[in-house]
């Protein structure tokens, strides 16, 4: 049997790889059930802080589709001295955004060190006393509506949302992250206040800051957790039907020029011994898909500009891997090629040197963790799953100790039968409704 290195057509790189000599200065403190992570980088010009609160999609009941996003957006719209929080922070030389995830809502505040304490104070004030008045909710709905329209124009996002709906079967974690305009329209102030009171709690909250942290007064980051109520909340249990095994394809039509195919596999969690092997496999899939179907370019395309790729979403539980292919050529054929390669990985006797695959996986991981936002997110994700904050060291160690048998085991266990979403161009004769 040919070795995996030969099989993949990979060449051993003749230079020594010493992946990270980074001297990041991490610290973690525990505060009332939450955690504060500091990643000091004195030469940085800015500070970025991510706050993760267990108030994501799985806290929504079946009749609360979009409520998590409406509450998060309302916090950004909360007026302080008559100015909405987001505008106030922009005026101080910063920005604040949020994402609604299957389990959490994640706020990200970035800004100039000189005014960062003021921004933290403003965020804390809005977080502690959000405005859920009818006027504030109206502004939040309008902002969400615009974001929903933009998201519906992104085929990968559309496909992922369809797949998530079937991926999470014991909670509503797979609901659309921002809800739907028609569901958002039905919520009133009491709904938002009720969701906030029940789920904006200290338990499990993680504040992760990166950058020039000397610009932050002692206790400022901890005070964000103090803005939340005591206690913790749990996901709302529901029972959703899994897709029958013979109907694993989901189809949607949007105003896009070419079809997209998106596949989703279950994947090992961050704490699993299979984390490292899955990082290696995912990066290998990404490279293989690019070789088979990507537009050949010498410059490395940004993730947003790629038509093919693979992503390991290890910050959610259960974790998953997404493989996507756009239809510049024949997405089904390309995807079949990728499945074949995975099948070979799972069933061929693997031998030989995995150095090249590991080197590539480490490089991709580090290359995608360079912004303050990425660095704050990664440290917060690791700490949120009860690991140490030095994400790079742990990811590299997990990759380095991967063996050929690990790869084979993980390929067989996880990369078997994906759920598949097809996002197709809308038929010109069809109505424009989604």
């Amino acid at each position, binding site marked *: 049997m040919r070795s995996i290195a030969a099989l993949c057509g*990979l*060449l051993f*790189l*003749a*230079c*020594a*790889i*010493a*992946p*990270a*000599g*980074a*001297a*990041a*200065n991490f610290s973690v403190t525990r505060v009332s059930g939450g955690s504060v992570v500091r*990643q*000091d*980088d*004195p*030469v*940085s*010009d*800015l500070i970025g802080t991510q706050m993760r609160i267990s108030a994501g999609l799985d806290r929504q009941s079946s009749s609360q589709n979009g409520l998590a996003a409406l509450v998060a957006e309302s916090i950004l719209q909360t007026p302080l001295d008559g100015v909405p929080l987001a505008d106030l922070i*922009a*005026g*101080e*030389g*910063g*920005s604040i955004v949020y994402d609604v995830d299957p389990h959490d809502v994640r706020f990200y505040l*970035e*800004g*100039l060190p000189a*005014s960062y304490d003021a921004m933290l104070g403003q965020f804390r004030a809005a977080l502690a006393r959000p405005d859920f008045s009818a006027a504030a909710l109206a502004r939040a709905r309008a902002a969400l509506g615009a974001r929903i329209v933009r998201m519906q124009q992104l085929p990968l996002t559309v496909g992922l949302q369809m797949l998530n709906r079937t991926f999470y079967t014991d909670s509503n974690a797979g609901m659309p992250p921002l809800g739907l305009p028609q569901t958002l329209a039905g919520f009133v102030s009491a709904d938002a206040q009720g969701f906030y009171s029940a789920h904006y709690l200290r338990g499990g909250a993680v504040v992760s800051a990166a950058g020039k942290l000397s610009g932050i007064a002692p206790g400022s980051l901890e005070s964000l957790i103090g803005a939340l109520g005591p206690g913790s909340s749990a996901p709302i249990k529901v029972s959703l039907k899994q897709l029958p095994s013979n109907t694993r394809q989901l189809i949607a039509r949007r105003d896009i020029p070419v079809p997209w195919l998106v596949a989703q596999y279950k994947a090992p969690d961050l704490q699993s011994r299979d984390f490292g092997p899955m990082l290696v496999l995912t*990066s290998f899939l990404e*490279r293989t898909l690019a070789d088979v179907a990507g*537009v*050949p*370019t*010498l*410059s*490395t395309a940004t993730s947003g500009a790629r038509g093919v790729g693979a992503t390991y979403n290890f910050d959610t539980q259960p974790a998953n891997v997404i493989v996507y292919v756009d239809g510049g050529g024949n997405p089904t054929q390309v995807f079949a090629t990728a499945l074949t390669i995975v099948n070979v990985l799972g069933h061929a006797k693997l031998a030989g040197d995995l150095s*090249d695959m590991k*080197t*590539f*996986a*480490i*490089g*991709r*991981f*580090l*290359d995608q*963790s*360079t*912004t*303050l936002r990425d660095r704050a997110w990664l440290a917060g994700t690791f700490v949120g799953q009860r690991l140490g904050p030095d994400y*790079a060291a742990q990811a590299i160690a997990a990759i380095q100790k991967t063996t050929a048998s690990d790869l084979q085991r993980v390929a067989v266990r996880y990369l078997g039968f994906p759920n598949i979403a097809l996002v197709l161009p809308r038929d010109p004769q069809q109505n424009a409704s989604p």
Partner: protein
Amino acid sequence: MMLRAVRGAAAVLCLTAAFFAPARAQLVTAHEDPAAATTAVELWYRAPSAGYDLKSPGIARVALAATVASKIAGGSSLSEMVNRLGGSLSIQVFPDISMVGANVPAGSAPAVLRAMTAAFFNPVITDAGMKIAVQDSGVAAASQLYDSAQTLQDALFAELFSEGPAHYAPVPATAQFAKIAPADVQAFASRAFRRSNAILSIAGNVSDALKAAEPQPAGALDAPPFDSTPVVTPGETSASAPVPGMGFAWTGPRIADTRAATAMDFIADYLFDPDSGTVIRAARSQRDAFAGGQFVTLHDPGVLLVTLSGGSAAALQQPVLDAVSAMAQPLDAATFAKARKVFLYHILSQIQTPMQRADDAGWYAAEGNAQYAPGDPSDTYVNAINSLDPQFVAQVARTYLQRPAVVRLIQSSPGGSTAT
């Protein structure tokens, strides 16, 4: 502000000769961040994209790509090496300057730097490398075809400059690349990528091993930046394109006039920042219309570019021109103070990553004012921001923002004819 990517700038440290192992000469800039896990290594060159005789549009793009794709002394090519490391490779060509860069794990940076300097300081372009380069340049041209902002930018430069590198699109139509002879590419690469014309820009995690691998800096390049000649009276023209649009361009201050150049950056940010720009926010009400603008900091002169694209672009023309004209009057003190703080944040947020820092350090050094790069330890740029006041900004607007060059893109049908 640097062109296109607008990625801010890097601190530039001209390292002393004793710092390096013995090697050759060019300008070296570096920004060290021990907390970074990666290192960006870049080479920047002053070279006209259309060739030294300006008769071979696209030759710099092909030469860059061919050098990156040609195997080095029978081993891997630079692109293969960076790809295997899981890093990012970037090649960019502008009318007057070009760059190649890689972002890789810190431990691999010395090897990448050696490979990069080996490939570029004595370029040997192979047949295979040339073939890949023509194909890659063709892909770049094809992808630009539907980028109306880039199409407008190229057309505006051609309209605004009657002579010089800026008159020519750095990435011309696909067919142009096949016309360039390999021997010409080799000759161009040998001249343009010579050591004494190279700016080495490094940012991120800089290890002792990397310092040992860096060439010795001489502190000055052997050629000045390539300037272009602006037209006396900017005119108006039209071109066909897959997407309709229109654009405006004004010549602005040279890079040496740091206060005025920073004032133009401020104006561009205040009006056209993608999130907070007053024009951009107002334009959101227009479906199917997209606006953008930036001041491009060049050796002499700089250029303020404004591009409008989409089916409703024409509806934005007058509001945009009115907004630009209004900058001739001073903003009120409170609005100005807030806008200046927002501007500083935008500038610094664009130099977060090693690649962003190396990009800007390289750009400003290539255009002739390395210390002006935002983030430079000299704080030249930040000091220039702090020196701005409403009256000065208005005065700069009155001086430079008079009659623009105008380009209209008329939508062509799929068959190639122009829709009316």
